[in-house]
């Protein structure tokens, strides 16, 4: 059933592998994909991954630096896989402890791991255990309770309502014994103990007694509503009875909450058009001080607040209790325990790491990393460190911090750095313009950073065409024209062979952005511009028609670089923005390889001191690098990202 099972070291050498019968493809591809997309991108929170037709499950062994991966067809649902992996891991470790223990890879290379027999035994055990818990087979008709009821009992008579209910009740009680039913004890005991034969028409004296008992209990319990029986009831008596609500009053006056107090504040705005005041309402003249908030509302609010406060206090108590417990465990024994924790080889367990990870997660959230991403990051770090043996004189906190720091640096450098100048030179040699598109929500700094980037490009000797595809916002075109004029005055055409370095392609307001972009690119190709910068209108990520329009612009024009502009001040919103933008781009493109966001521009970086978490959120979600960092509003305020500086600012207390 399994396609393959591999055990390999974290350094990359495959120690043992097993390929299922009839499987010919090599598993190297899928396993590499698993490593690259899950483990290296710190998404190892959940331990399964799908790659084309295969579903992969994996487990990391951090003590001996091994990875166990099992792969099977996606359409199969094998329940024994988790157990199998755990068993194999324990078995393998026990058996090869000596070879694996030594530092250095020579032993790994030279030893031969003959694990086939053990593996087949474990596989057989796992398969058997899963078969043992087969799903419950359906009962045959003879076994069911329905066969034990007589036909007569199911005939509807005048009092048939009650008989049917009883039968239904008995069946329900027999079948649903596991369900928690907050029913009075009398009902269940009497119903289950009663013999199944339900014989004659009419009610037997016991049934009458039982019925009366029910009525009694029902009245005692009050709002204890009986479960609606699933069998269809016979016709109810003819007239429809008026429904009586328990909590509701019976008079209309009870519903009139209008009070002389609050009418004045609400009605004041509407006085203008009709000064006609209804008789029922009284207006309070607003003389003197403003009255406080309405008594009833304030009472409810107070009660609500009190309840909330109580809950918070309870939570706080619980938290302090759990915090106090480990401290209480200290004392004299704890002193030596602390020293013991410092020296000697100790392997990390989840419980040891929990408090440190919680603190780290809160710290990250305080530094403006999105909440779900902090959680996922901490989970992934926990997975990476579980079972790892710490060296001497290292505390749990320092190990966890170190691991977190490494994973943060890893996240901030996802791919090869985007070297725009190199790519522009490439495009120039192919005689086509290099097209960059800027997209993002409203007010993040697209146009400002577009101007900064064009300044940088013309400083390096490239000619730039700005395409004004923001045809919605008032003043967008004029803003770009002002930038163009300023940039041209800084780099006058006389210095560069009589040709203006920056030109603006605009068609006014209200036109279709995708069409303008296409014309601008054709113009740039004719006039041999090096770079085309396309400025789009800001749009909210859940505005479907605008997202469709953006996706169309990108799909039709096929830019070389799609940059998402995001501000560093954004918090949890970053996750939503990026996910929805990527989703829209993927959904609305016609080809099967849609153009997604290729890079991120992080703007307004000078406004945050060290709360640099937005950088992490954005790169984690998309897996794309941060290409530019905007640090101000003049042309010189454009930087590239320094991952180490950002991470040290993030980890600083």
């Amino acid at each position, binding site marked *: 059933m399994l396609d393959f099972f*591999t055990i*390999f*070291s*974290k*350094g*990359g*050498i*495959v120690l043992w*592998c097993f390929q299922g019968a009839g499987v010919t493809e090599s598993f*190297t591809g899928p*396993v*590499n994909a698993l*490593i*690259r997309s899950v*483990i*290296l*991108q710190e998404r190892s929170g959940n331990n399964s991954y799908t790659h084309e037709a295969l579903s992969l499950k994996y487990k990391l062994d951090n003590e001996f*630096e091994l*990875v166990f991966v099992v792969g099977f067809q996606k359409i199969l649902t094998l329940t024994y896989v988790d157990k199998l992996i755990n068993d194999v891991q324990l078995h393998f470790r026990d058996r090869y402890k000596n070879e694996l223990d030594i530092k*250095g*890879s*020579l032993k*790994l*290379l*030279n030893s031969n791991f003959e694990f086939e027999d053990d593996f087949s035994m474990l596989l057989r055990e796992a398969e058997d255990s899963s078969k043992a818990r087969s799903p419950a087979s359906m009962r045959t008709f003879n076994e069911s309770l329905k066969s034990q009821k007589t036909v007569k009992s199911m005939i509807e008579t005048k009092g048939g309502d009650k008989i049917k209910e009883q039968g239904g009740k008995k069946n329900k009680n027999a079948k649903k014994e596991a369900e928690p039913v907050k029913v009075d004890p009398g009902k269940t005991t009497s119903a289950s103990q009663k013999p199944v034969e339900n014989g004659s028409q009419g009610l037997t004296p016991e049934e009458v007694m039982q019925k009366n008992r029910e009525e009694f209990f029902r009245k005692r319990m009050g709002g204890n509503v009986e479960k609606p029986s699933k069998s269809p009831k016979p016709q109810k008596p003819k007239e429809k009875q008026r429904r009586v609500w328990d909590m509701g009053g019976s008079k209309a006056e009870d519903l009139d909450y209008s009070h002389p107090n609050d009418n004045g504040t609400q009605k004041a705005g509407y006085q203008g058009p009709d000064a006609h005041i209804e008789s029922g309402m009284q207006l309070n003249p607003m003389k003197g001080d403003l009255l406080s908030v309405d008594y009833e509302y304030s009472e409810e609010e107070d009660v609500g607040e009190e309840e909330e406060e109580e809950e918070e206090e309870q939570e706080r108590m619980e938290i302090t209790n759990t915090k106090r417990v480990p401290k209480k465990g200290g004392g004299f024994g704890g002193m030596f325990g602390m020293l013991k924790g410092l020296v000697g080889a100790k392997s990390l367990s989840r419980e040891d790491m929990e408090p440190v990870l919680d603190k780290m997660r809160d710290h990250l959230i305080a530094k403006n990393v999105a909440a779900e991403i902090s959680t996922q990051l901490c989970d992934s770090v926990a997975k990476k460190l579980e079972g790892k043996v710490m060296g001497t004189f290292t505390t749990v906190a320092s190990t966890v911090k170190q691991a977190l720091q*490494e994973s943060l*640096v*890893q*996240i901030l*450098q*996802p*791919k*090869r*750095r985007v*070297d725009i*100048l*190199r790519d522009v*030179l490439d495009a120039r040699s192919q005689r086509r313009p290099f097209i960059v598109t800027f997209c993002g929500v409203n007010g993040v700094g697209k146009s400002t950073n577009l101007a900064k980037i064009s300044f*940088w490009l013309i*400083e*390096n000797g490239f000619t730039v065409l700005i395409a004004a595809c923001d045809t919605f916002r008032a003043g967008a075109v004029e803003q770009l024209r002002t930038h163009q004029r300023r940039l041209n005055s800084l780099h006058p055409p006389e210095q560069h062979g009589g040709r203006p370095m920056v030109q603006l392609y605009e068609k006014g307001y209200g036109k279709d952005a995708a069409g303008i972009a296409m014309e601008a690119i054709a113009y740039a190709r004719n006039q041999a511009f090096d770079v085309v910068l396309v400025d789009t209108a800001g749009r909210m990520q859940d505005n479907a028609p605008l997202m469709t329009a953006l996706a169309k612009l990108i799909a039709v024009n096929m830019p070389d670089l799609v940059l998402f502009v995001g501000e560093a001040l954004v918090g949890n919103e970053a996750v939503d923005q990026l996910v929805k933008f990527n989703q829209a781009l993927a959904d609305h493109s016609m080809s099967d390889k849609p153009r997604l966001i290729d890079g991120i521009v992080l703007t307004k*970086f000078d406004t945050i001191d060290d709360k640099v978490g937005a950088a992490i959120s954005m790169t984690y979600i998309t897996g794309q690098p941060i290409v*530019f*960092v905007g*640090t101000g509003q003049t042309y010189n305020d*454009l*930087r*590239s*990202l*320094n*991952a180490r*500086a950002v991470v040290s600012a993030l980890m600083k207390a």
Partner: protein
Amino acid sequence: MEEEKEDGTGSPFGPYLESLRRELENQDPRFTIALVVALAVVVITCVFLKYFLTSKTVRTAVLLVGLCDAGKTLLFARLLSGKFKRTQTSITDSSAPYKAKSDKASTWTLIDLPGHDSLRSQYMEKFKSTARAIVFVVDSAIFQKEVRDVAEFLYFLLTDAVISRNVPTVLVACNKQDITMAKSAKLIQQQLEKEMNTLRMTRSAALSSQDGSVGGSVFLGKKGKDFEFSQLPMKVEFLECSARGNKGEDGDANIESLEKSLARL
């Protein structure tokens, strides 16, 4: 009185020295011994500290670096054990002591670093100061598509401050020569030189980092002339090898040239 007169004409520290001498003479000899021992300990500690702080880390490592899927881990396995091993993408480094086959070669540590983009830089940071030689493994079969990435990595390697200071030997191993489409070492060298020529211009124009540090401060080669590897202060050698070997999984690898170069270190 006479003593006081004499002291008055002597140095200003006279009275203090006199009192000190008198104190020492009055005390037990143990005090003097203790004082001498304490002074000696202080002096020795100072000497040791100076020695440890300024001692250079001994460079005995040979690093195997390269892009992802270049064949570093297999090369590592072949050099150490000669056997073929299946490999996956490395997540951490592997290290082992290595002794070349020739007689007068010394042992050093062979370290295989992961090639994945996100891990590359932090492992380089960790190991670059101990590098005595760097084996840069290149996938010769798909070199044409990866030219820019290879050149960028090599550029960062060569312009790194620590590496340009220590000047380790750089061996560019053009791996996967058993595939028919593999490019020769000479061709790879020419292409890399062209690419590095462009790169050094674009990289020096790159944006500075947000905290002000400017990347790419070292300018490779000579200005005004086209870039060539011979212009570099470190020795850069190109050679061909094949970790998989011509006869498939069971045959030997074709790594004699690599072993010979390693033996010459």
